[in-house]
């Protein structure tokens, strides 16, 4: 059934919360590390807030970043299994989507194959974020807690590895935010209450909406009424 006759339920509250926790902790981790990356441009953060404050904040948000997917296994099991399940089902339609996507990015409206719960680009982002989470968490923990346990010849390598992973993650985050805010602002509602407009869902996740109809979760009539 649609919510308020207009919106398709997409994410459960626990999953919405995990997305916020992950996003905020990642951005805060990035910001609190910036002065270490370039003291000339970002040294003012140390001067304004104090070195210990920033370093302790980095550790605080690191804990949130690490535990979010673990909490997610309890409060958002469906959402996380969907993430993993969808990434493993990368198919021909996803490839077609990726090939045609630059057109959409440039403001055109190419004929896309119907996309599932996540489209080809989203699947790539999910896979990348999962890999980066592992790299960031492992290298970060080795730097934070590895002193005296792991040899410095290994620990020293974690500095560039952590930096590179953070850089790639930030670039991906910029793209992710741009696509949401700049290209598909209708998708943002999913971050608020987990629903998206029916016509957005049909346009961008047609195959998924078809599944919902087939499962009887949403009816065709409802959708038609919502769109018109």
């Amino acid at each position: 059934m649609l919510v308020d006759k207009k919106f398709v339920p997409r994410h459960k509250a626990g999953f919405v919360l995990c997305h916020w926790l992950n996003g905020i902790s990642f951005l805060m981790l990035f910001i609190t590390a910036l002065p270490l990356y370039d003291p000339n441009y970002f040294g003012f953060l140390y001067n304004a807030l104090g070195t210990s404050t920033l370093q302790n904040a980095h550790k605080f948000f690191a804990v949130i970043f690490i535990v979010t997917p673990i909490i997610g296994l309890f409060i958002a099991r469906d959402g996380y299994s969907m993430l993993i399940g969808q990434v493993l089902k990368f198919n021909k339609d996803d490839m077609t989507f990726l090939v045609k996507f630059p057109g959409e990015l440039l403001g055109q409206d190419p004929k896309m194959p119907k996309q599932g719960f996540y489209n080809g680009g989203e699947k790539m982002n999910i896979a990348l974020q999962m890999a980066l989470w592992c790299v960031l968490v492992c290298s970060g923990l080795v730097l934070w807690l590895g002193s005296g346990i792991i040899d410095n010849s290994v620990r020293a390598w974690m500095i560039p590895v952590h930096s590179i992973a953070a850089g790639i993650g930030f670039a991906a985050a910029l793209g992710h935010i741009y696509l949401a805010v700049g290209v598909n602002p209708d998708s943002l509602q999913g971050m608020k209450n987990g629903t998206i407009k029916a016509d957005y869902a049909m346009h961008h996740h047609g195959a998924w909406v078809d599944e919902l109809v087939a499962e009887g979760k949403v009816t065709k009539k409802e959708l038609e009424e919502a769109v018109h």
Partner: protein
Amino acid sequence: MAKEMAMLHDVARCSACRACMVACKQWHNLPADFSTPFEGQYQSHADLTSKTYNLIKMNERTDKDGKFHWDFIKIQCMHCQDPACMKGCPEGAISRLDSGAVVIDEEKCVGCGYCTTNCPFNVPRVDPDRNKSTKCDLCFDRIENGMIPSCAKTCTAQAIDFGTIEEMTALANKRIEEVKKDFPNANLYGIGPATEGVGGTHMMYVLPEKPSVYGLPENPKTPASIDLWKDVVRPIGKIAGVGAAAGIAGLFVLSKMMGKKNH
């Protein structure tokens, strides 16, 4: 001080009296350090700390012939010629002086601990209270005023010597000849192939046995990861950061323009 200096610890002469530890604390105004509880051991502290820059390590060892040895070694900053801490410091807070002393400028230090992570000898310690990195500074202030470091000054057994790098190398080679009569493996640590990876060190040792016996790395190296981070990751990251922001702004404008044409 234009001359390159060096300190020599002759492990064969050291009696582990620890006067050097006391002298170091006095000169640097360091408080007593109760970080290691007394459990009957001879060694005073388990490791270097932000309050203990200089430590005499004591180790009981039985060699392959069943002979008992009591090993003493003075550990502190090695004052590398190619210091990994200096290269790895994102704030440029660490420098190597003409004397060879590697020193930390506390004004610039932010306590990130990258110096500790990069150090092949795992020496610098960040003081948790002040959030500043700390280590032996070779008493650079004493050297600049014509004095020798406090640990060398106080050593009664002449196990710690200090002078120009040439003098210390000559003295070390002489001592090694003597030690070799009893310990054929005796070697000089700090100059030569063993420490080539860090460009040699201004802290040198006469070691009766091979370095690993005393817990010294056999082949310390200034890690290549520092160069990767400083010369590649940071500059490319900066360009990529600006590029990504500009790219997204451009894309936004372009999509609005092309979108308009289509509709």
